[in-house]
């Protein structure tokens, strides 16, 4: 019988700990499939964050380091400077990448550090039970914004792709989502472009994935996917923000 679908070799057999309906599983699979398709699993070294994806080092089927909260781009920098010909990536959430680790993110990009960052933006701190994230939307109710996020108190959500695309060291920056099949396929293409940029030694690449958190948003998985489309996408427009790959063509 012909095999029509197989789990990627880029993931281990350890079951995910993620909540039902969480999109981390999809993003993990896409990253793993891309690495397998590019044939880089044997030379990949990943860096896991602190947050919901803290156990990512168990799931990706390659060498991994677990970083302190927000420090993944610095850890990845250390690894890449030792092994410039290996493929080094980080997998980070919004609190990790855009709050406590903002400096590490911005300066890794400014240096043109030849690494790939997978940024999962679900606009909330999931692991700690649903606090405001730097990317939480205006009006969003969380444990720490029980009356909704108010600009006069909490300021405005951070747009990382827009910020980082202004830096000369950034080679490939794209924002994607995973709320339906079409967008999942687009996300995979974007992730492949980011890894390709690294393989071509173009510098820092980041893919921001608009994701859902049904548990802490208090929505069903389907409602949560719809919420990405209706509420997140208007504030965080999808698209390619920086692409130096085209220039070489």
């Amino acid at each position, binding site marked *: 019988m012909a095999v029509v679908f197989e789990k990627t070799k880029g993931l281990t057999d350890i079951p995910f700990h993620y909540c039902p309906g969480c999109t981390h599983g999809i993003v993990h699979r896409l990253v793993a499939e891309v690495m397998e398709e590019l044939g880089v*699993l*044997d*030379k*990949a*070294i990943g*860096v896991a964050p602190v947050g919901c994806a*803290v156990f990512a*080092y*168990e799931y990706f*089927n*390659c*060498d*991994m*380091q*677990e*970083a*302190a909260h927000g*420090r993944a781009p*610095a*850890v*990845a*920098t*250390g*690894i*890449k*400077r*030792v*092994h410039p010909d*290996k*493929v080094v990536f980080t997998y980070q959430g919004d609190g990790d990448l855009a709050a406590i680790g903002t*400096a*590490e993110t*911005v*300066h890794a990009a400014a240096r043109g550090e030849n690494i790939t960052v997978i940024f999962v933006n679900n606009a909330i701190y999931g692991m700690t039970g649903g606090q405001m994230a730097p990317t939480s939307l205006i009006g969003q109710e969380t444990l720490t914004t029980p009356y909704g996020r108010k600009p006069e108190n909490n300021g405005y959500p951070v747009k990382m792709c827009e910020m980082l695309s202004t830096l000369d060291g950034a080679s490939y920056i794209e924002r994607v989502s995973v709320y339906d099949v079409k967008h999942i396929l687009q996300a995979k293409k974007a992730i492949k472009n980011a890894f390709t940029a690294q393989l071509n030694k173009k510098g820092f690449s980041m893919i921001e994935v608009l994701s859902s958190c049904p548990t802490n948003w208090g929505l069903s998985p389907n409602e949560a996917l719809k919420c990405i489309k209706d509420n997140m996408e208007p504030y965080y427009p999808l698209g390619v923000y920086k692409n130096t790959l085209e220039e070489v063509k």
Partner: protein
Amino acid sequence: MAKVLMKGNEALAEAAIQAGCRHYFGYPITPQNEVTAYMAKRMPEVGGVFLQAESEVSAINMVYGAGGAGARVLITSSSPGISLMQEGISYIAGAEVPCVIANIMRGGPGLGGIQPSQSDYFQATKGGGHGDYKLIVLAPSTIQEMADLVQQAFDIADKYRNPVMILGDGMLGQMMEPVDFDSIKKGENHIEEKTWATTGMGTRKKKNIINSLELDPQILEKHNIGLFKKYEKASKEEVRYEMINCEDAEIILVAYGTIARVVKNVIELAKRENIKVGLIRPVSLWPFPVEPFEKTVDHVKGYLSIEMSMGQMVEDVKLAVNGRKPVYFYGRAGGMVPETDAILEEIRKISGGAK
């Protein structure tokens, strides 16, 4: 190579390169800036990596990454910068990543000053970050010893898969002395293959993980016990100290690093006044040398700890002496250095007071 005249900070950097270190991550801070400048120039010459990070927080995490990836890696800073690194140092110790960290101490607390001090002794030897862990801490008192200990530090770090700290001060970093690099005993010379490092799996069947997270308390306790078995071995095998004139000493001074040099002069001055004074100079601050105290506690009247701090190592001296003889303290802080006259006066007080 004949003897070369070098600043302590430069000797530290050159010794690291000669020990096979090819990765250095740092951030500017006085009084250790000669290290970063030296490395920026020298690393490209030997095909190594010098990287100026955006902060000490980032720099120590680059060290975690590079050390975890199998490199011999050095990071240097001074007191406030070392404070910023404590989170990373805890992770490095927890994940058992070897590296060498040098703290060229200055006066504190807070922003403090830029003059030499020894006020980070507690932070270095008692675990400045969170959790049960130990650094192996080595304290040179000459530029030659700085070069010698840096060489040993890399071997020790690899042997125990543990961070090793070189604890110096601004004076040692800034002053110049002749150094002979040829005379340095090259320890294991060959660096053992780091089969645990994240190098990419290649043909390896099992993936490598560098990590300090463990949510199961039973497993985490086992990990802690494992770390302490390692520390127990180190506390037997890595003890280093110097003893001068201790055999028939009436009073034994205890001092490490820069201030031990001042204290050596005091021994002669005291002799002229017929007071027999000796010196115990701990070179390893952790493990703290207990042996020289055991050897001397029966015949000595008391110990006097001399420090460039408000009194930190004196607590370890008291633990070693364990109430069997009196332990005194004299120190200056904030960048002030105890002078021979003042130390001599303390000795007179103890000697006269005890008679």
